[in-house]
């Protein structure tokens, strides 16, 4: 029996004890082996003070006693205790008058008690049935010897106390008080030891033996006495607990539970009756209460009580509240009672009831948990696992190989479930398979972890590394990215010579990539750094491995994700020529450079790189693609071109189209289109868009080259590919947007000649298509409308007046003509349009065209119809606000309508504005415009335009006071907007808000500090 370690608080440390702080800390953590190692080294070091050196045998012995407790192997336990005993005897012999001599006697008593206990345990083994009385007799002898040492300790403490004055003034005679306190404390402790020995002696008799009862009664009486005398100390509370234990073993379960309840009800913080319990002992009281709970659960599990469900409830509650204590001895004790309760309920269910399946696995799971760590319960826990294996359907991994087999099987089952999940169209089935896969992967991860633990010294280290690596794989499959990353990085960094190391390093990278993809935008930076570190490890240590190439490609992907195509291209370009991934990497590098070119070309003149740099990007894009194509063509022979080859050719053709080299584009596209048309190649089908993109590029190239017949044919072929009108609508919108981007890019680059060519060629083609009276379909007209619309939008931002503006208005007009044609046909021919929604989108486009033409009244009429049908449509309301805004721009009046709304109608006898205006529009969006919502950008757009309209309105004011007020309002709008988000809507909006604020400040004759001046960095 062990009593609470500290009986009274606040004993100041002596000089040598301070030096031994570290040994104490090691012991407190349960690292007794390391404490012994440390103390032994300390003993060998020179310069250690004599007073420290003197206590080392005592301290080593104390740690040996503790380490013995945690050993499963009884022989090793005995060896440790024997060594401890010899060290203590050495200490007592060398320093009989040392102040720790009494403690040494207690420790000796403790060792003898432990040895006695072990004999008691042995006497209970079935194999020792015949020797039982002898073992019990030897145990008693040892316990009596222990009793003598405890008594010696008690006498020593008492003698020291007698040497001191009865009452010590704590402030006047500090030294005496300090000496008295440990002696006082030791005397109480010895009293507990002596009572405890009676309890242990009881255990040396059979349950029905009268002597057992006598000793238990004697122990109970002594504990009661101690409690009565020291009830306000930790010793008193501890004695009370052991009194309860004695009562339990005497069969007085009710009384025992009563005592436990009394102790559990004790509030450590507010226990006025326990005056010595202060803040420093709260933790000790908590520890005692945990132990009391353990004893209480033992009572509840007792065959005479059988309150197993209550055990489950209380143990689970404790475990939930104390996750960090689960591995402590008291935590293990409570868990052990929980496992016993599960088993007992399972047993009570009876064979064949089927309900055991519910309880035994739970018991086995808890027992497995206990068996994992050192404690007095792990031997019992292992026995429980063995007992319930098979009965619970539970498996047991007895050795490394067994655990590996079970792990592999679980992993295979998980992967099979994953495959099934991918193969089903039923979402609920897919979900079920995903759940099964997750559970199996979790099982696999557990089994691999067990395998590592079960590895013997002679196990092949490569196999152990395989287990570590596979554990990481299972974690990765479960989506536990960081666990997978840490585990795999461990293999890669610690065992770089292992065959598994490169794969592990790659897995670490993949896991960080998984984490990166799952993280929120603002949390991604850390993941990226780790990802880069993993990549660095791979590319530096195994530069020629396929894993390093995959790492380069993964990093390229990440860079693209981060809108950094140049870095992406560099990563792709770093894949060496001998690599299997070379061709794929070249194609990706080319596309990334092309993307970089498009991004750079779209920048404002001040941000845009010099023309030579742009040309260089273009050149590199072409070079990488051509390199890949040449390499593939060279090795192609008679075989069918691979997907990578076709994709590279298509990318290169797209670049030619965009740069106006239509002939070069068609030289690649014509054979390619022929190759893929009517092809049933699965790889192309899997890529979905590939064939479509090829036709789109061909269409663009034919239009650009002025080969309008072929262009029309390509358009028809494109239409024939799609089965639904709606998907074709999507393609035409894409085509329109691409055209818009191209026009915009050429305009920004000042490529007047190229721009003019594109516009002219398209206008010619579209005009030809629009004038066809026969065979007009929704698709064709929609394509024409979108193409005109795209060109108009592309030109509109820079052409606000002059002949360019006229051209924009004309393009909007042509688009409007196509859209009106659609609406007319739809009115005449039911089923002409694929859906009402598609028609609504056309009507909205028509509004935009009317706005672009400066026909604001017509735009409003169309809008009114749309808003009457759905006043809360975000797209329609935004368009409404823009109509008013541009109207105000054109005639320099009516800014209020853009701000506060217009188009009044009567609704429920109240006048209301159909178009909300930017103010109400922004207000309506605010609650839904969270960062990850699609409205986040729209809300910033609305808030920006609100401030902009106020600013413009201010400029129109003749009265300086009114003007100042409007400018203040505009500034407040911006301040409010930027205060609500931490990114101000992103870099683009930041720039726009900043610029507008500076304009506002300048208009108010103030210093133009922009956002930085209002505290936004």
């Amino acid at each position, binding site marked *: 029996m062990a009593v609470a370690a500290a009986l009274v608080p606040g004993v100041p440390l002596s000089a040598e004890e301070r030096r031994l702080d570290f040994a104490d*800390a*090691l012991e407190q*953590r349960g690292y007794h082996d*390391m404490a012994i*190692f440390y103390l032994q*080294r300390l003993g060998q070091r020179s310069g250690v003070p004599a007073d420290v050196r003197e206590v080392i045998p005592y301290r080593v012995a104390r740690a040996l006693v503790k380490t013995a407790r945690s050993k499963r192997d009884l022989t090793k336990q005995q060896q440790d205790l024997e060594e401890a005993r010899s060290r203590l005897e050495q200490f007592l012999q060398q320093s009989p008058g040392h102040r720790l001599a009494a403690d040494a006697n207690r420790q000796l008593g403790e060792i003898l008690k432990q040895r006695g206990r072990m004999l008691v345990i042995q006497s209970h083994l079935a194999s020792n049935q015949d020797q039982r009385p002898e073992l019990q007799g030897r145990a008693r002898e040892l316990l009596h010897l222990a009793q003598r040492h405890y008594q010696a300790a008690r006498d020593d403490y008492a003698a020291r106390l007698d040497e001191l004055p009865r009452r010590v003034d704590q402030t006047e005679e500090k030294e005496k008080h300090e000496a008295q306190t440990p002696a006082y404390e030791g005397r109480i402790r010895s009293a507990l030891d002596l009572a405890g020995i009676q309890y242990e002696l009881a255990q040396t008799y059979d349950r029905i033996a009268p002597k057992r009862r006598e000793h238990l009664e004697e122990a109970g009486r002594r504990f009661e006495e101690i409690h009565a005398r020291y009830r306000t100390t930790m010793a008193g509370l501890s004695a009370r607990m052991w009194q309860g234990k004695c009562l339990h073993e005497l069969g007085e379960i009710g009384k025992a539970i009563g005592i436990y309840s009394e102790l559990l009800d004790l509030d450590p913080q507010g226990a006025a009756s326990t005056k010595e319990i202060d803040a420093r002992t709260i933790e000790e009281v908590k520890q005692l209460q945990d132990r009391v709970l353990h004893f209480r659960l033992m009572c509840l599990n007792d065959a005479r009580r059988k309150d197993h469900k209550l055990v489950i409830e209380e143990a689970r509650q404790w475990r939930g509240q104390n996750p960090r204590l689960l591995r402590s001895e008291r935590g293990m004790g409570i868990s052990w009672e929980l496992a016993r309760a599960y088993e007992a309920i399972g047993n009570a269910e009876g064979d064949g009831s089927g309900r055991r399946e519910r309880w035994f696995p739970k018991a086995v799971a808890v027992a497995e948990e206990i068996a*994992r760590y050192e404690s007095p319960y792990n031997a019992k826990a292992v026995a429980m696992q063995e007992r319930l294996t098979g009965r619970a359907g539970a498996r047991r991994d007895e050795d490394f190989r067994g655990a590996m087999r079970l792990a592999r099987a679980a992993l295979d089952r998980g992967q099979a479930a994953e495959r099934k999940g991918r193969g089903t169209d039923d979402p609920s089935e897919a979900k079920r398979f995903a759940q099964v896969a997750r559970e199996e992967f979790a099982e696999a991860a557990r089994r691999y972890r067990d395998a590592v633990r079960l590895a013997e010294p002679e196990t092949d280290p490569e196999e152990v590394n395989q287990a570590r690596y596979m554990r990481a794989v299972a974690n990765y499959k479960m989506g536990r990215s960081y666990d997978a990353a840490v585990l795999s990085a461990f293999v890669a960094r610690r065992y770089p010579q292992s065959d598994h190391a490169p794969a592990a390093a790659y897995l670490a990278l993949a896991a960080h990539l998984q984490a990166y993809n799952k993280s929120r935008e603002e949390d991604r930076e*850390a993941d990226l*750094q780790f990802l880069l570190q993993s990549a660095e490890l791979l590319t530096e240590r195994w530069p020629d491995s396929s894993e390093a190439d995959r790492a380069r490609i993964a990093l390229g992907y990440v860079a693209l994700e981060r809108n950094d195509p140049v870095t992406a291209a560099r990563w792709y370009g770093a894949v060496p020529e001998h690599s299997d991934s070379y061709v794929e990497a070249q194609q990706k590098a080319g596309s990334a450079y092309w993307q970089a070119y498009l991004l750079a070309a779209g920048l404002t003149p001040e941000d845009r790189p010099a023309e030579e740099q742009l040309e260089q990007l273009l050149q590199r894009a072409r070079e990488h693609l051509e390199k890949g194509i040449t390499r593939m063509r060279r090795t192609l022979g008679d075989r069918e071109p691979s997907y990578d080859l076709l994709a590279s050719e298509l990318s290169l053709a797209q670049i030619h189209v965009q740069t106006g080299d239509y002939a070069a584009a068609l030289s690649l596209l014509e054979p390619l289109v022929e190759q893929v048309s009517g092809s049933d190649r699965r790889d192309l089908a899997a890529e979905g868009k590939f064939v479509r993109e090829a036709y789109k590029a061909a269409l663009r190239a034919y239009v650009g080259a002025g080969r309008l017949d072929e262009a029309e044919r390509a358009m028809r072929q494109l239409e024939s590919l799609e089965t639904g009108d709606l998907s074709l609508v999507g393609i035409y919108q894409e085509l329109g947007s691409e055209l818009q981007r191209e026009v915009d890019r050429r305009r920004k680059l000042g490529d007047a000649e190229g721009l003019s060519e594109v516009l002219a060629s398209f206008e010619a083609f579209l005009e030809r298509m629009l004038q066809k009276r026969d065979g007009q379909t929704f698709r064709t007209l929609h394509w024409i409308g979108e193409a005109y619309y795209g060109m108009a939008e592309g030109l509109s931002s820079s052409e606000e007046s002059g002949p360019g503006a006229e051209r924009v208005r004309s393009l909007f007009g042509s688009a409007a003509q196509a859209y009106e044609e659609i609406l007319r046909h739809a009115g005449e021919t039911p089923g002409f349009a694929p859906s009402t929604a598609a028609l609504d989108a056309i009507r909205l486009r028509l509004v935009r065209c009317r706005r672009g033409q400066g026909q604001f009244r017509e735009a409003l009429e169309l809008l009114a119809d749309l808003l009457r049908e759905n006043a809360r449509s975000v797209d329609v309301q935004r368009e409404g606000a823009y109509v008013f805004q541009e109207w105000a721009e054109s005639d320099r009046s009516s800014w209020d309508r853009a701000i506060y709304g217009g188009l009044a109608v009567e609704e429920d006898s109240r006048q209301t504005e159909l178009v909300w205006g930017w103010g109400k529009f922004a207000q309506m969006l605010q609650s839904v415009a969270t960062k990850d919502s699609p409205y986040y950008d729209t809300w910033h757009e609305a808030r920006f335009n609100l401030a902009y309209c106020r600013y413009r309105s201010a400029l129109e004011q003749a009265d300086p006071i009114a003007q100042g007020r409007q400018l203040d309002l505009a500034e407040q709008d911006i301040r409010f907007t930027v205060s609500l988000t931490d990114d101000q809507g992103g870099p683009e909006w930041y720039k726009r808000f900043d610029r507008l604020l500076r304009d506002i400040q300048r208009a108010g004759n103030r210093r133009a500090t922009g956002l930085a001046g209002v*505290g936004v960095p």
Partner: protein
Amino acid sequence: MAYRRCSILLAATVVVAGALTGRADTVQRVGDGRSVGGTVVERSRTVITVRRPNERNVTVPANEIEAIRYDGEPPKLNLGRVAERRGDLDTALRFYRESASGTGEVLSQPVREEIEFYVARCTAKLAQNQPELLPEAATQLERFRDQHADSHYYFPLHESLGTVYAAQGRTESARQAFEVVRSAPWKDSRLRARVAEGRLLQGEKKHEAAVALFDEILAEGGGTPEAERQLRAARLAKASSLVGLERYEEAEALIEEVIDDAPPEDSIQAEAHNALGDCLRAAGRPAKEALLAYLYVDLLCASEREQHAKALFYLSQLWEDIGRPARAEDALDRLKAEHPNSVWAKQ
């Protein structure tokens, strides 16, 4: 260039607007130094002048200033200082930011300046463990440097800036920043700067040069408690270079010297024990010996968060080496739970 411009302004002082209006500011000194109450009337890079209620002026050297609590500052500001002192940097930063924006009142220039510095310093400290914050920390510190060239935080600011640059691998910029710190009129600041410069050399693997520099520093001797502390830091840093030169026995002896010499509660004990663990590992000594060194940090210096994370990382490896996988796993679990953002947790 920016450094040259700043040094020309060295002698300049700022007369605090709103002085002599009966405010009660408090200048808190570092350590147990007594606070000085009154009205801050003048501030410069090296000294703060406080007008006491008896109308007499008292000057406080800038290197003795822990913080200035201005009359009417937002209450959360001090909560931030307390949190920063106990190492809870995330909370500190939150309080600082709320102080800057949450009161609805217009803050005086000196209060704004204090807050700006705290935010920059706190971000810089956080960035040591979260490299993704380094650019932000550098920007904040640079902005403070440019906008408050005569702040009494001028030298500490450059120290933080140097540390951030060093972590970013911008060695030359870091060197320039430490050079500024070296121009401070106090010995402890100069020593700190020189130790930091030695560490830069270590980062460049110039161990011979670093050892020579550390020897020069050690020859200077201490004098004040802070200077003594810097000398101990220099000895530890020198030991690290000796490990780099594979002179393990000398390194170990030097570290043991620091361990014996430094007060047991001094935060340098954590760094010293980790350095000892590193040295023993590098020397190929039995794993248990290094384990003990790292365990010391785990058990007795867990409040030194960065060092604790490092110790747990190596413990997880060394436990495995001596066949204690459960303890290895425990160390790894605690590393992930207690220091989730640490660079050691995701190695």
